[in-house]
């Protein structure tokens, strides 16, 4: 069937499961000519899969469109609003309530006054002609008049509701996003990618993140493996330094290590290979004590794999295509150490080898007899080859947990040293594999081959198990060669970033599709896990659960599995409850299958409680849907802000579900970026994004909103107070244009400047004192007390402005010429006071004065006077009551200026005193840092320590914690020995 036309008469029936979201399972069968062929996930291509190294395939479409598994895993694009904004809505409702209340009170008084104007035909306030009036003032229908007045009042006091706030916030947020996009510290030279805020909605949310849910591959790691160390015949080779070790070294302040790192930078030229040891490189291994073992070790690396070589036709260089990057790393390592694998056919593997005797390169070809593939339950792979000399070799590599038990009695020569090395490697965050071999005799192989082939060709459902069983029989009595250590290369600066985030009190959960071992390794690599942490591992990959799954009764099996997960969760919870400090923090590691049950409604609360109590949480083998579900669980149940970060299409659901989705614009396509809110090029930029931009934006937006409410309340209440003196008739004290321009000209620009430029402390200090970030997480700057405080300040200011003005400008003459004040003079004076007070209040609360702030604040006040002059000079038809009010009436009167000064100072006094007292006695975190800055103590370690000690919870993850824990252990040991 190699012609398209042959398929014309191809008839088969596929039976399969209903569309579902499970990416890793598929159940179906193909009925061809009355024969059943099983269909498994291996036969299924997921949507968006790409063909590589294959020209074409023939297939049938099983699910389309929305029914595809990938689509079932996707969730609709959410509309996200920040918590601050949602709270802002509540304040608007609250203000609207006040507005209605004020209008209502006004209407009642107005109604009563209006009704009393005409009683028994007698006019009380005759100058209003209550006998001949419109419905608005009709005493006979006072109720109607009151209702109409209510509407008038709603319009009049409408200045309480800061409508321009929404517009201003939009402007501010867009400018903030520009700052994020323009930040040079978040620009990644290698891929030429700056940070990109794709939505400006969530800037301030960046300052409130409590939990980060991170993908692993491509996010924490760069998805490339580097062969970095190996242990051969009980000797450890390789001088490479891992990212973790580097970070630890930096923490300890060892200068020697620094130099090594610098050297490293220069020569990391070969991708996947970071090995350096003159003892075995460049063929000098021949002189090592166990040269024969080294030779076998390297040969095994070159042969035992499933990679394909690709020869570059131009320069003859060979690159490799491998199923997993660590396999590629092995082959590359073998090549670099003198065993170049260059050709693979169906039956043979060809290698250029260094001959230890002659010291020349020779071509050797091994005929490939069997490949015993890797599977997650076997945790090893082997090949059986026949060398040119005719010896049969079984070459095997696998996890230490399965390999050591398979060693022959005479193969354990180096076991102790190797084990020691493996532990060292693992703690350095490396992924280790054990390499072993054995020679087979013909008879044994023949028997095995027959059985194995038979098992392979059987059609029964347990075909795989059969093959595994047979393979197991032959993979024994192995002889240990050594171990490899591959670094799943973390992205630059990841451990430092995680440490900073941990110090800032942000929790990091890792959600990955990887195997548990890999995930744990990475946990170690980025200091999320460390020796001495108690691990709570919840897994359904146990042998018992395997047997459960095989049983016929699926629902019973599921129930049993769930019970087992529940049991493990409860045990974990008990451990958590009983834990005390000395035992060290807990780490929760859970796999995808268990997660399915843990996320069910009746269990998820328990799961969440346990997870929150743990210092680190790692979910492995999780599907995109589960990532999203975990995110939702954290988001809704703890009502804390979640940030998801990922780079691949499988993270899309999580990014959309989280309060903030951050996409890594890496190599895995654009899908994550397209559905993210903010895209950055490297995980480490997250530190600056959150601690600097997030903190600033949160601070700016929350101060801006508070201030906005303050200024509108201050303005609105002066109007209301005046109404009380105008029998609530709805006459505004200010000229119409003053009213309209208040929010636009005289007070808006300083607020926007505050929202865009204000900084409590500089970026350097934001990063130096990560704990500052907790201000956002605990929402200190936008708490209800703070909002209410500002609102009260507004009311108090309004009262001071109004009552001081009317008492200073009572009925008496207000200047030498004997003139008395009219409505327009009172209005102008009050308005002048309002402009001064709100602008100076702004100047008081701003902590960062650039020329822009100066321009806007003082410019706003100056502009008011200019406007007054210009408007007053216009024709009286246009300027009405404001005609010449300033130059003729106000400016020449000393009392006008005295009142302005008095009102200004007395209005600022409460806030000024409050902040002086707070600064002195109850400083917030940023204020303490401001103290230090102004005293020049920021470089004094003692003070930095003091700030840190005010930490709200001790950090439990990150290399700082790791360093502290290890130094604690050391101290304890020292004390013991003494």
């Amino acid at each position, binding site marked *: 069937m190699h012609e398209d036309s042959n398929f014309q008469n191809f008839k088969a029936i596929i039976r399969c499961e209903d569309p579902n979201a499970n990416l890793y399972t598929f159940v179906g069968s193909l009925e061809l000519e009355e024969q059943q062929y099983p269909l498994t996930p291996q036969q299924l291509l997921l949507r968006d899969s790409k063909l590589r190294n294959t020209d074409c395939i023939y297939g049938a479409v099983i699910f389309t469109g929305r029914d595809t598994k990938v689509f079932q895993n996707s969730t609709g694009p959410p509309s996200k609003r920040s918590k601050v904004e949602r709270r802002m809505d509540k304040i608007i409702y609250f203000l609207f309530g006040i507005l209605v209340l004020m209008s209502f009170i006004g209407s009642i008084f107005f109604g009563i006054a209006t009704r009393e104007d005409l009683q028994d035909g007698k006019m009380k306030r005759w100058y209003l002609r209550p006998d001949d009036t419109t419905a608005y003032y009709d005493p006979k229908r006072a109720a109607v008049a009151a209702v109409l007045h209510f509407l008038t009042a709603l319009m009049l006091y409408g200045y309480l509701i800061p409508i321009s706030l929404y517009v201003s916030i939009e402007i501010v947020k867009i400018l903030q996003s520009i700052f994020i996009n323009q930040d040079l510290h978040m*620009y990644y030279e290698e891929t030429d990618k700056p940070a990109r805020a794709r939505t400006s909605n969530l800037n301030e949310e960046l300052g409130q993140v409590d939990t980060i849910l991170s993908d692993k591959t491509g996010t924490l790691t760069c998805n490339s493996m580097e062969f970095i160390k190996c242990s051969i015949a009980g000797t450890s080779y390789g001088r490479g330094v891992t990212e973790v070790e580097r970070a630890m070294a930096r923490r300890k302040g060892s200068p020697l290590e620094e130099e090594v790192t610098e050297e490293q930078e220069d020569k990391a030229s070969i991708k996947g290979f970071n090995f350096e040891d003159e003892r075995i490189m460049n063929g000098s291994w021949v002189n090592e004590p166990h040269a024969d073992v080294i030779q076998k070790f390297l040969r095994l690396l070159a042969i035992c794999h499933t990679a394909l070589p690709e020869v570059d036709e131009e320069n003859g260089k060979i690159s490799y295509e491998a199923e997993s990057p660590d396999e590629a790393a092995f082959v590359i390592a073998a090549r670099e150490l003198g065993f170049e694998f260059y050709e693979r056919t169906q039956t043979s593997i060809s290698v250029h080898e260094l001959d230890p005797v002659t010291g020349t390169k020779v071509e050797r070809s091994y005929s490939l007899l069997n490949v015993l593939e890797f599977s997650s339950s076997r945790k090893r792979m082997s090949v059986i080859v026949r060398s040119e000399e005719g010896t049969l070799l079984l070459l095997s590599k696998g996890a230490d947990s399965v390999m050591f038990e398979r060693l022959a009695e005479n193969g354990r020569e180096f076991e102790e040293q190797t084990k020691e090395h493996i532990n060292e490697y693992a703690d350095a965050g490396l992924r280790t594999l054990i390499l072993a071999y054995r020679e087979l005799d013909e008879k044994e192989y023949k028997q095995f081959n027959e059985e194995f082939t038979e098992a392979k060709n059987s059609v029964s459902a347990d075909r795989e198990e059969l093959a595994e069983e047979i393979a197991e029989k032959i993979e024994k009595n192995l002889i240990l060669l050594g171990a490899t250590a591959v670094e799943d290369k973390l992205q630059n600066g990841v451990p430092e970033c995680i440490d900073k985030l941990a110090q800032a009190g942000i929790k990091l959960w890792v959600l990955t599709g990887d195997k548990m071992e890999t995930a744990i390794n990475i946990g170690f690599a980025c200091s999320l896990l460390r020796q001495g942490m108690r691990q709570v591992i919840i897994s359904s990959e146990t042998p018992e659960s395997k047997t459960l799954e095989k049983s016929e009764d699926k629902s019973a099996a599921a129930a049993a599995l769930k019970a087992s997960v529940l049991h493990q969760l409860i045990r974990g919870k008990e451990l958590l409850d009983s834990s005390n400090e000395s035992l060290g923090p807990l780490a929760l590691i859970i796999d995808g299958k268990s997660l399915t049950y843990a996320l069910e409604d009746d269990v998820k609360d328990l799961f969440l409680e346990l997870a929150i109590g743990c210092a680190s949480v790692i979910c492995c083998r999780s599907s995109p849907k589960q990532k999203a579900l975990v995110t939702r669980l954290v988001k809704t149940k703890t009502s804390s802000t979640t940030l998801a970060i990922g780079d691949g299409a499988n993270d899309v659901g999580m990014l959309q579900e989280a309060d903030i989705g951050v996409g890594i614009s890496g190599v895995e396509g654009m899908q994550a970026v397209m559905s993210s809110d903010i895209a950055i090029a490297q995980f480490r930029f997250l530190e600056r994004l959150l601690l600097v931009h997030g903190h600033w934006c949160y601070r700016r937006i929350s101060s801006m909103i508070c201030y906005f409410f303050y200024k509108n309340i201050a303005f609105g209440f002066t109007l209301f107070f005046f109404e009380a003196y105008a029998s609530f008739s709805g006459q505004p004290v200010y000229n119409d244009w003053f009213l309209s321009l208040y929010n636009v000209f005289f007070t808006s620009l300083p607020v926007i400047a505050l929202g865009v430029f204000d900084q409590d402390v500089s970026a350097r200090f934001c990063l130096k004192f990560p704990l500052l970030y907790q201000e956002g997480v605990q929402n200190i700057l936008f708490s209800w007390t703070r909002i209410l405080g500002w609102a009260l300040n507004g009311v108090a200011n309004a009262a001071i402005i109004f009552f001081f003005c009317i008492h200073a400008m009572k009925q008496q003459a207000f200047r030498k010429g004997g003139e008395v004040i009219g409505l327009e003079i009172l209005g102008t004076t009050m308005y002048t006071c309002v402009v001064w007070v709100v602008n100076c209040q702004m100047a008081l609360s701003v902590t960062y004065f650039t020329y822009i702030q100066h321009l806007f604040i003082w410019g706003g006040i100056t502009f008011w006077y200019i406007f007054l002059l210009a408007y007053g000079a216009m024709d009286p038809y246009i300027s009405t009551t404001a005609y010449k009010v300033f130059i003729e009436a106000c400016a020449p009167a000393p009392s006008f200026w005295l009142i302005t000064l008095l009102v200004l100072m007395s209005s600022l006094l409460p806030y000024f005193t409050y902040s002086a007292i707070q600064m002195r006695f109850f400083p917030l975190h940023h204020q303490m840092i401001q103290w230090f800055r*102004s005293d020049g103590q920021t470089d004094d370690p003692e003070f930095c320590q003091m700030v840190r000690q005010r930490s709200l919870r001790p950090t439990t993850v990150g290399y700082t914690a790791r360093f502290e824990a290890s130094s604690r252990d050391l101290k304890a040991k020292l004390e013991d020995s003494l």
Partner: protein
Amino acid sequence: MKGRRSSSDSSSSSKTKKPQYSKFTQQELSACKPILTPGYVIGIFIIVGVIFIPVGIISLFASENVVEIVDRYDEGCIPPNYSDDMLAYIQNSDTNKTCTRSLKATKLMKSPVYIYYQLDNFYQNHRRYVKSRNDKQLWSKKHEDDTKNCAPEATSNGLSIVPCGLIAWSLFNDSYGFSIKNKMVKVSKKNIAWESDKKNKFGSDVYPKNFQNGVLIGGGKLNSSIPLSKQEDLIVWMRTAALPTFRKLYGRIESDIQANDSVTVIIENNYNTYSFGGKKKLVLSTTTWIGGKNDFLGIAYITVGGLCLFLAISFILVYVVMPR
């Protein structure tokens, strides 16, 4: 060669997405970062206190220098037989409204002595009242018939009222005559209104028409041969007051009133404040640079200044007792 290189450099740099460095975009603008250190706080408190207290004392002193005579006459000018029904008295056009009051100057009042009438509980700032005027009509003869917003005092017998509206209609019409030691004192009523009103708001070619012709007579009448720009009483009245208790300038006495002089005032008590329970007062007052008599500004300045000094001292004490 050199030029070419630089041009290729710039083209390559424009291709990259690397943000351009500027202090603005990197948020590194130079800025002053004031924080409220104890020094600043105490300094500011002391400065404010030191400035405010003298200012307050000077203001208070200026206010104390004002000599002011206030005489409430609305009740006193009602004949005893009408004291039960003051409304009937004021609304009856046949009753004799003349009333004589005697005021005593306690101190020397230097000219000019300003004469005010003070009304109480009179809502000139009522929305209906404030709006009930037509500025176009007041200013130009062309717009004589423009009586928009003036209802119900817009027309009388189908003819437009000039000046229309409730404000003009309710013009205050009590009048005062002064004599000291039986000698008539001249009251100047010139230049009691704002210059801008006379020049730019009330037309010199607009004459009162059909004013107070209706069934219901409000307040004072106007001489229809004098243009509005010269009717200063009307102009003063039409600058609506801000608060329900207000004074308005009536005129000036341009001679000194000696201490202990007795001033006899003959009042034409025409204006009806009785129906809404408002008081009427006659006020004679001198002025200083701060205006009329009002101690509030001075006291407030002294209080705020004192408070600041008090806070300054408390802060100093706190720092002495427990330094940071």
